[in-house]
């Protein structure tokens, strides 16, 4: 909506009356004045009555209601402006001393003129005529000499103080029609800005300048009182002036007394005094004024008219005061608005340069927010960076936390990977949906963040296998991603068997990978659930929340629940996941020492930190989880130290060089990274106070999290006689050694390996479900692919990142200037893994290349020459051009050399 200026100046106030009309009115006004002077001189009886009984008592009301009207038609201002209009003014600038004392002159003239009425002007028409004509001449003379209105109207005029006092908050705004253009002749000019002028005076930095004006406000009621309480002819002239002076002093004294003791802002008291004066004046003159007008119009006044008008004025005054107070507030608000901060020309050039480079426009609905982003960024990054309401988890299209609907130009987004398609299918969303973390922008797009009903289209593919119809009931233990994926695939392939999912946790499937958000964010579980509640209902999957599976009886094909109930099954899928590994640490379990695996853990950490005003935290373990937890606590405002037992961070994902880059970044963020540090014990009386390291060092802390790995939940299986190692041992069909029982996810051990990764859990669960129903799918392992979910670090690790065989080729490329680093491990011409630091847009490509197992072919030659551009054609061109230091080596030995070099530098 469009705003109007606070206190518009006269050029911003709409003009309704054309200049011609004003000019005509001015001619009339001067003519009338001359007429009045004539009357006064030659018919003093009538002249005096007209002047003192009608004209003078009417003016204050005009000042009060529409001061601009008077400023435009005042005969004195007309006289004053004649030289300007006809171009014969000398246009001088008022000398400084006159600028200061002109107001005092005007005020003094008024203070002398008013008592003199009793001695002279009230009775002597000629004297008034001379006064009138003399003033006209003075105004004209002022205009002859000085520029603008500074020769009279905004300086010497004795009526000016009254106009400003009564007209400080005009009811009707009428713009100045004299000054065209403004020549800036007066300070805080009333004609320039009628609403701000008086306030600006009150708040002027010059103590004297504002003091004169405040003095007038204080003195004026005294003047009025003294005038109307005079009984003419009762005292000598000296006594009269003396009494006036005395009353004025009393009035002013009271003003400054109140000014000192009333705790109100500055302009309130002057406003109150102004209304006091006005009402006092009309208390005295209203009866006469009413009678005079009635006489003029030849009417007989009704008795109640005077009190009614006086009452009306009081009401109007109260409204006026309220407005004045509010204006003062607004004035102070605007005048204390901090000075604006500008930019240097260099900065403007940089802005212009960035502007010229363009950028892609991403429009978010609802709200029509337009972001301009760099090509290659994901929609998730763009949305997050701009504080849009979006959740995230895996940041690689697996979890389904961040669906968005593409409204326009879907083809301007990077193509979908298989994982992303599978996730969208699991979510049951249709055409137009993308996972924001996977959709990289390549052109202008328009997307919606709201779960758009239109795109929700449940697509259940027809059964792909011949299901065993004898299966009536499938029981799944665990409601994590493995359990839910299994349930989903069982239902997709077997439309009518009963599916029971047992969940120890009290939540429907939520995004475990995003639970660190529960630590620093305030929206708790909202947004963390990955399926709508009706998802289970729609698929006729019954869930037992907050319920444990206690034992399995494989012979009876029965499972016992913690509630004492028994469930029969035809097929059982164990998706019990894992829990945090707790290393042997003395005293662990002391309040404040804990782990992070479940939503409840994260919420408890947040609660604990608040309850005990935690300021410092220590994380044991520099792996993915440890760093993500550290970042979450950092965002919560804690001082965080990460202790890593080994020589480098993320030892399972990064080589030494990349870890070094990461350490530098995290340290600069404010995380303290301590290497070769292992916790021996935690200490504290009631709750944790410090941790003690194996080497004897002690670190004070309010919170300690251990994040050193996972421990698969195998107890249930082991008790039932199922073969277990680290996890529940499964074959390549995800079957355990007992018929009818399968396992998947973090709980499963395949070829000696527990993946502990979301994508592995999804794939395994799908295979377990299909095979349980009689299908025949084999699992060949998952290429681990992980990203660190810490803002600003784009580090990704895929597959094998260190050479293992002598013939392995390693390609390394460093860009020190931008702290970027990438590495590929190639075996027999096939990429088996690599590391990307600072190349987020290449992550998907690398994962795809490594998974595909396809030979590099011509790209290999290019790589050997140090040319990466072919391989990562998606990379933003800017980055591959400004390659800094280029290190390209092609044998395992050389790669080790680089690593040695970087370790050396560290020492």
């Amino acid at each position, binding site marked *: 909506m469009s705003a109007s200026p606070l206190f518009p*100046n006269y050029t911003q106030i709409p003009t309704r009356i054309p200049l011609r009309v004003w000019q005509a009115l001015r001619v009339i006004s001067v003519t009338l004045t001359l007429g009045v002077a004539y009357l006064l001189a030659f018919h003093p009886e009538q002249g005096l009555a007209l002047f003192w009984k009608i004209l003078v008592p009417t003016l204050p009301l005009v000042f009060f209601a529409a001061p601009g009207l008077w400023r435009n038609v005042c005969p004195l201002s007309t006289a004053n402006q004649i030289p300007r209009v006809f171009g014969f003014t000398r246009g001088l600038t008022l000398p400084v001393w006159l600028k200061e004392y002109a107001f005092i002159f005007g005020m003094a003239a008024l203070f002398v003129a008013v008592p003199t009425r009793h001695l002279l002007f009230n009775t002597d028409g000629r004297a008034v005529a001379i006064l009138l004509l003399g003033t006209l001449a003075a105004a004209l003379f002022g205009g002859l000499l000085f520029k603008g209105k500074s020769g009279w109207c905004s300086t010497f005029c004795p009526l000016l103080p009254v106009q400003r006092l009564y007209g400080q908050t005009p009811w009707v705004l009428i713009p100045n029609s004299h000054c065209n253009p403004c020549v800036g002749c007066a300070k805080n000019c009333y004609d320039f800005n009628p609403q701000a002028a008086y306030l600006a005076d009150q708040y002027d930095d010059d103590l004297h300048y504002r003091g004169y004006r405040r003095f007038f406000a204080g003195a004026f009621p005294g003047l009025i009182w003294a005038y109307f309480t005079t009984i003419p002819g009762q005292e000598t002239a000296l006594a009269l002036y003396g009494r006036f002076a005395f009353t004025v002093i009393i009035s002013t004294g009271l003003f400054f007394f109140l000014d000192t003791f009333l705790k109100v802002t500055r302009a309130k008291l002057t406003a109150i005094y102004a209304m006091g004066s006005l009402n006092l004046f009309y208390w005295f003159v209203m009866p006469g004024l009413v009678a005079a007008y009635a006489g003029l119009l030849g009417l007989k006044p009704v008795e109640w008219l005077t009190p009614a008008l006086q009452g009306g004025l009081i009401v109007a005054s109260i409204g006026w005061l309220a407005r004045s107070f509010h204006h003062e507030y*607004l004035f102070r608000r605007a005048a204390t608005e901090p000075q604006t901060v500008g930019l240097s020309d260099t900065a403007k050039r940089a802005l212009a340069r960035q502007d010229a480079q363009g950028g892609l426009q991403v429009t978010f609905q609802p709200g029509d927010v337009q972001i301009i982003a760099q090509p290659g960024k994901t929609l998730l990054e763009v949305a997050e960076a701009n504080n849009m309401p979006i959740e995230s988890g895996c940041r690689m299209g697996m979890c389904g936390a961040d669906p968005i609907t593409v409204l326009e130009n879907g083809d301007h987004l990077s193509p979908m990977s298989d994982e992303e398609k599978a996730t969208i299918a699991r979510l049951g969303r249709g055409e137009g949906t993308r996972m924001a973390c996977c959709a990289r922008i390549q052109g202008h797009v328009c997307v919606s963040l709201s779960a758009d009903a239109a795109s929700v289209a449940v697509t259940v593919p027809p059964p792909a296998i011949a299901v065993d119809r004898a299966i009536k009931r499938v029981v799944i233990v665990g409601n994590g991603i493995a359990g839910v994926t299994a349930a989903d695939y069982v239902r997709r392939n077997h439309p009518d068997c009963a599916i029971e999912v047992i969940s120890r946790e009290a939540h429907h499937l939520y995004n475990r990978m995003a639970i660190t958000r529960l630590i620093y964010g305030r929206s708790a579980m909202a947004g963390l659930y990955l399926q709508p509640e009706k998802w289970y209902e729609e698929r006729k999957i019954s869930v037992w929340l907050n319920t444990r599976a206690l034992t399995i009886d494989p012979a009876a094909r029965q499972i016992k629940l913690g509630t004492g109930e028994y469930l029969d099954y035809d097929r059982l899928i164990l998706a019990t996941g894992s829990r945090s590994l707790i290393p042997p640490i003395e005293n662990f379990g002391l309040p404040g020492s804990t782990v992070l695996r479940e939503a409840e853990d994260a919420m408890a950490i947040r609660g604990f930190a608040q309850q005990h005003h935690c300021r410092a935290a220590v994380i044991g373990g520099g792996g993915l989880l440890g760093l993500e937890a550290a970042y979450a606590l950092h965002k919560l405002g804690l001082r965080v130290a990460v202790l890593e037992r080994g020589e480098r961070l993320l030892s399972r994902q990064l080589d030494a060089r990349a870890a070094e880059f990461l350490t530098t970044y995290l340290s600069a963020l404010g995380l303290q990274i301590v290497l070769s540090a292992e916790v021996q014990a935690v200490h504290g009386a009631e709750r944790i106070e410090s941790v003690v390291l194996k080497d004897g060092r002690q670190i004070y802390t309010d919170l300690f999290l251990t994040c050193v790995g996972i421990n698969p939940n195998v107890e249930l299986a082991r008790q039932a006689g199922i073969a277990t190692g680290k996890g529940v041992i499964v074959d390549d069909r995800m079957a355990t050694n007992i018929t009818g029982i399968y396992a998947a996810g973090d709980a499963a051990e395949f070829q000696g390996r527990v993946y502990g990764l979301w994508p592995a859990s999804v794939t395994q669960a799908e295979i377990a479900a299909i095979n349980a129903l009689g299908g025949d799918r084999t699992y060949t392992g998952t290429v681990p692919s992980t990203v660190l979910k810490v803002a600003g670090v784009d580090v990704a690790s895929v597959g094998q990142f260190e050479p293992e065989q002598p013939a392995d080729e390693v390609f390394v490329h460093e860009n020190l200037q931008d702290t970027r680093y990438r590495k590929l491990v190639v075996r027999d011409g096939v990429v088996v893994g690599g590391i990307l630091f600072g190349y987020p847009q290449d992550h998907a490509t690398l994962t795809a290349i490594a998974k595909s197992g396809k030979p590099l072919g011509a790209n290999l030659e290019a790589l050997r020459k140090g040319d990466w551009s072919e391989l990562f054609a998606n990379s933003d061109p800017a980055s591959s051009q400004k390659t800094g230091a280029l290190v390209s080596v092609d044998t395992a030995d050389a790669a080790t050399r680089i690593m040695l070099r970087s370790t050396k530098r560290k020492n």
Partner: protein
Amino acid sequence: MDASGFFDYPQDSAEPAQQALVFLPELGEESWAILLSFTQRRAFRAGEELLHIGDTGRALYIVGRGTLEVVLPQKRGRLLRIAHLSGGTVFGEQAFLDGQARSATVQAVTDGEVHILSLESFEMLAGRHPELARIVLMDLGRILSLRLRRAIAMAAKGL
């Protein structure tokens, strides 16, 4: 108090009355480019509201193109403009530092573009270019300090 905004007499406007504070006056163009690469660019259309009074959100805004106005919402949906922000000005620096609620609404007068440095982006900047981040903070501190001096000078003059 500074009421000069209400009395912008035309003849003064040749030379901008109050020499505005300049953000990072010494920073070179390359460093500016780095700093800008950490900001979020947001385009706005005339009439669009960018900040609402009372909102919280720690971000610094750099107006690239276009003009914005600072307004105070009044009764009956009326909006009073108390300041203009043209291209090449910075705002929101106070909330960026103290995280308090915005004290006025900011809306667009024309189409244009702002660059937003959120606290999070700033952290990333600090992670990548600690020296630049330090300069930014020092300069924000300098600006606040100058303002404080001005406020103290006003107070000293008996305002």
